[in-house]
């Protein structure tokens, strides 16, 4: 019968197609495994060599790439071959932040202390008090630590940047307000000063108020992206050749 024959033909064709689909699916699994296990990107020739003869490598790769598109891992073309890679938008996950506790250097600690007590203070003033030039790195570290910020610029020749402490400075050191920093008498009383103190040594009244002082003017926008001006040379902090004492 005609219908029977047609049915038989149809059924045969369908069987063949099913068999082919099954084979393709199996080849997909193999290609997927090969691509996963390979240390280097695999070219289509590499794949063809490893897969059973008759595998349609081009279609396999396309199918796998489509299958993985939008997923956490994508099949991408790299160096002429194909390789699985973490999806680009998830690359941030592939890095791990390790918080590494680090002790502040003595130079940084001293600079921070001067900023805290003498703020608003310029770099030249810090250097004047410390008697050595302050490296850019030291102030950078303190800014990075979130304890020191750029306040403004001093209304003075050269308009130097003024530094001050931040709220996070207060948090870290357990201070309620900058005024809670102990004064000279308290420092003496707590034994921080040893021996005789020269007369006339004064500890200023620091201010970390957001409002600028009269002798300060605001920073320009650009200042925030170039936070540390280079004042003269950047000598090593602990270098012997600090600035000569200016009497």
């Amino acid at each position, binding site marked *: 019968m005609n219908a029977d024959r047609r049915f038989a033909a149809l059924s045969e064709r369908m069987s063949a197609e099913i068999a082919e689909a099954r084979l393709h699916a199996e080849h997909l699994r193999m290609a997927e495994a090969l691509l*996963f296990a390979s240390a280097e990107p695999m070219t289509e020739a590499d794949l063809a060599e490893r897969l059973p003869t008759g595998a349609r490598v081009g279609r396999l790769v396309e199918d796998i790439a489509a299958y993985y598109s939008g997923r956490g891992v994508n099949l991408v073309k790299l160096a002429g071959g194909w390789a699985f890679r973490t999806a680009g938008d998830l690359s941030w996950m*592939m890095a791990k932040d390790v*918080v590494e506790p680090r002790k502040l250097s*003595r130079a940084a*600690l*001293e600079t921070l202390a001067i900023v*805290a007590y003498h703020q608003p203070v310029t770099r030249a003033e810090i250097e004047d*008090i410390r008697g050595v030039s302050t490296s850019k790195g030291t102030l950078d570290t303190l800014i990075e630590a979130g304890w020191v910020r750029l306040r403004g610029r001093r209304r003075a020749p050269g308009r130097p940047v003024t530094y001050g402490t931040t709220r996070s400075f207060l948090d870290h050191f357990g201070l309620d307000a900058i005024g809670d920093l102990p004064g000279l008498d308290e420092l003496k009383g707590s034994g921080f000063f040893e021996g005789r103190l020269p007369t006339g040594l004064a500890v200023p009244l620091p201010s970390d108020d957001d409002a600028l002082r009269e002798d300060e003017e605001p920073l320009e926008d650009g200042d925030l992206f170039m936070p540390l001006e280079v004042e003269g040379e950047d000598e090593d902090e602990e270098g012997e050749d600090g600035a000569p004492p200016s009497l």
Partner: protein
Amino acid sequence: MAIGRTIDFDDDDRAPVREDGEPALVVDVGGYEGPLDLLLDLARRQKVDLREISILALAEQYIAFVEEARRMRLELAADYLVMAAWLAYLKSRLLLPEPPKGEEPSAEELASALAERLRRLELIRAAAKALDARTRLGRDVHARGAPEPMAVRTRPLYEASLYDLLKAYAAQRQKQAASRVTLRRRVVWSLVEAREALERLVGHAVDWMVLDDYLVRFVSTPSERATVRASALSATLELAREGRLALRQERAFGPIWLKAASAPRADPVPEPAA
């Protein structure tokens, strides 16, 4: 006596040579790893279940094996022989009527301990085989060939205490204060100044006068007295040496009298023996 397992005569060049020059025949006991392994193999020939083997028969087979090897003048390792001796002892114990229960374990206990030991070895052999048959990483299954290692970004977290901060500040201020010592400018009457002044005065000192009286004129503050006196004294000594002044002192630490020399000379006389 036929031993099931082949005994290979290993006569390759590893075979040791005996002292009499005759090559020693080394029994490669078919890869047996010691007497226990050999026993296990013999036992397996008896029964599938090691719990039902006859230790007596096993001992006899083992002893027969060793004797056969000796008859063929095969060198057997010492522990094969030790095991043979022990099995011979066990065999005799098993055959003799059991003595009344003493401290020693009975022959039956010894036999079952041996059977247990063989079973343990067999079990671990099977376990090792099963372990080897597992799908093994890098052989049967594979990990990601190109792993994407986790990059580690270290973020420093600075630590400092208020104590550190205050200590640093105080030390800094103190150091700075100490390093900036302002020396008070000392008023010094230099030797040159003293000489000039004395030279100007020499002309007036026609009669003896006390040096101090002169000095007083130049001394404005007590602090200057020492330097004025020292410089003036040095200058007068110099002038006296040049013969332009006469000096006189009546006692130690007494006032110093001076007057112009009677014949002042224009040129200083060179010292005879300077």
